[in-house]
């Protein structure tokens, strides 16, 4: 399949090309938004056309009988294993956002009429491992995630890839965070060696009095973009943190819309970006406060450190506000490591590379330390060091 063939097609042609029927509303939404290109605002800084123009083999998704495991294992878009007793099954998505900004959100739903549905019971803590084993493939799947009211669940997401190449992964969540509950999602993704590229398109509904804590740790190289839309009901809260540590010529980042719909809803969005080599980091984030969202509090901040003269950060924090009764702030800074701090560490016998690593981790630490589980925190730090030393090995 070559996704660029979907460009400028009418509904009938799209139905034929995608082999679908009875999904006219979704097709129309996709057609209206159009296949993303560098002219699309949300994909402007991400080389999406190159990814869409490649020829991919398509995979057949056949649900498997799940084997018991300590984690949910999804291999090439198919769930293979799950903890015993956890409700993980295949089902058509019942609630698709008809006002998402990302055309690939709709393409994802069109390509995956059956989604992976995960229901988190009680105060569950679960790890989801995404594994990719196919080269030159288009791997497409969507996950629908529900938690229970008044409960506090945590999901740790991890990604592994075999020795593959030229694969494109389109995936994403439709999360429904129930009233008076908390859902924490901690994503850790280390990409290297151009094994696969990824576009992840999410929709998060946060119900009344609920908390969404979304932490994303994107490390290494390659091409990946996450597009996130969050809708906040009355007194709902989202805490979205994003750490980027990129090297080589990677392009990765977040394009987001946080929409305050309910009164007294609050949002905090913090991005920390460390860019090495010729990497490009993307933080294109909009907070929209609707007429209905009086007494909103919204805070948005992006900080970037450039470790190389060719590294580049695109930071676009934006507010779109329709009411007066609110507190909102946003800002973005880009800088380099402080030479005074670097010298201080060196003056105590700590080598240049080690001193830089300490400062880079110090910069990232405020986000890493928000991961409550020390095992996962340690894993993020270890991966962080692995990526750091891969870049700086010649200086050690």
């Amino acid at each position: 399949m070559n996704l660029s063939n979907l460009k400028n097609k009418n509904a009938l042609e799209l139905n034929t090309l995608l082999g679908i029927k009875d999904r006219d509303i979704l097709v129309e939404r996709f057609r209206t938004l159009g296949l993303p290109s560098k002219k699309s605002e949300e994909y402007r800084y991400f080389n999406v056309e190159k990814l869409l123009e490649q020829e991919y083999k398509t995979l057949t998704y056949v649900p498997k009988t799940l084997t018991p495991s300590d984690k949910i294992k999804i291999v090439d878009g198919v769930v293979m294993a799950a903890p015993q007793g956890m409700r993980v099954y295949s089902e058509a998505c019942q609630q698709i956002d008809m006002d998402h900004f990302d055309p690939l959100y709709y393409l994802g739903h069109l390509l995956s009429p059956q989604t992976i549905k995960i229901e988190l019971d009680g105060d569950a803590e679960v790890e989801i491992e995404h594994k990719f084993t196919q080269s030159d493939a288009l791997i497409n799947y969507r996950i629908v995630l529900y938690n229970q009211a008044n409960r506090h669940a945590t999901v740790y997401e991890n990604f592994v890839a075999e020795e593959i190449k030229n694969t494109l992964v389109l995936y994403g969540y439709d999360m429904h965070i129930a009233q008076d509950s908390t859902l924490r999602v901690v994503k850790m993704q280390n990409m290297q060696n151009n094994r696969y590229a990824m576009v992840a398109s999410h929709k998060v509904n946060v119900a009344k009095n609920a908390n969404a804590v979304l932490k994303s740790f994107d490390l290494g190289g390659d091409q990946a973009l996450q597009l996130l839309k969050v809708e906040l009901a009355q007194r709902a809260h989202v805490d979205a943190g994003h750490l980027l540590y990129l090297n080589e010529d990677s392009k990765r980042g977040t394009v987001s819309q946080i929409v305050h719909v309910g009164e007294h809803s609050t949002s905090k969005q913090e991005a920390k970006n460390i860019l090495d080599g010729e990497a490009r980091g993307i933080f294109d984030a909009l907070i929209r406060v609707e007429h209905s969202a009086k007494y909103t509090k919204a805070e948005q901040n992006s900080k970037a450190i450039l470790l190389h003269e060719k590294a580049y950060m695109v930071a676009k924090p934006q507010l779109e506000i329709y009411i007066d009764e609110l507190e909102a702030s946003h800002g973005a800074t880009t800088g380099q490591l402080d030479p005074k701090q670097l010298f201080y560490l060196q003056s105590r016998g700590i080598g240049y590379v080690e001193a830089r690593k300490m400062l880079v981790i110090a910069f990232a630490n405020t986000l890493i330390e928000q991961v409550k589980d020390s095992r996962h925190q340690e894993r993020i730090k270890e991966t962080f060091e692995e990526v750091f030393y891969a870049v700086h090995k010649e200086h050690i």
Partner: protein
Amino acid sequence: MSSVMKIENLQVKIGDKQILKGLNLELEPGKVHAIMGPNGAGKSTLSKALVGHYDVELTGGDIIYKGKNINDMEPEERALEGIFLSFQHPVEIPGVNNAYFLRTALNAKRKHEGKEELNAAEFLRLMRDHLEMLGMKSDMISRSLNEGFSGGEKKRNEILQMLILEPEVIILDEIDSGLDIDALRAVSEGINKMKDGKRSFLVITHYSRILDYIEPDYIHVLKEGRIIKTSGPELVAQLEEHGYDAIEEE
């Protein structure tokens, strides 16, 4: 007695400005050398030059340390070889844990000396006594490096680093600035503890107050980028009475 550090005709620029203009100085092992001088004489520039600070540009002369020219040596190499600067204004580094930083520095030095690295428990045991002697609260080591520390706490932390790293040449740049009398006593006690007849001290100061606590062997007067007079401790009283203007070049 042969010197541990010999500074010959040192010329240093910061930016476009020539600060040190042919400075000569020899540090003897086990001795306390005090450098005194008016504002802008080049005292802090000298300390920066000795530790390889990025601000300074050596335009002439040599720094010979233990018989080796260290003009081109990196700051971390100088530290590993035993040169230590207690900063006038220690920098704050949020996110770098004080204990982790110090253990990393100590283990870098131990590795350089071919010794085994210390684990966290061994390191904490080593640090406990020093903390008590310096009157430092134990939570200071679990905080970020110098972040939110008072002026006195920062200076005590510098001395803690000195005690742990056990350097051979110790440069104290305005160690007494911003210290109350109790902090000055604690810091001085830490410094005096390091006086073992082998280590050399270079105490850079405006005022004689610190020299009441750390007895110097030599007083050097630095003015307009050069040492213009070297004498015994009796010179302090003369400086107190007549000021730097009364000192004539030898």
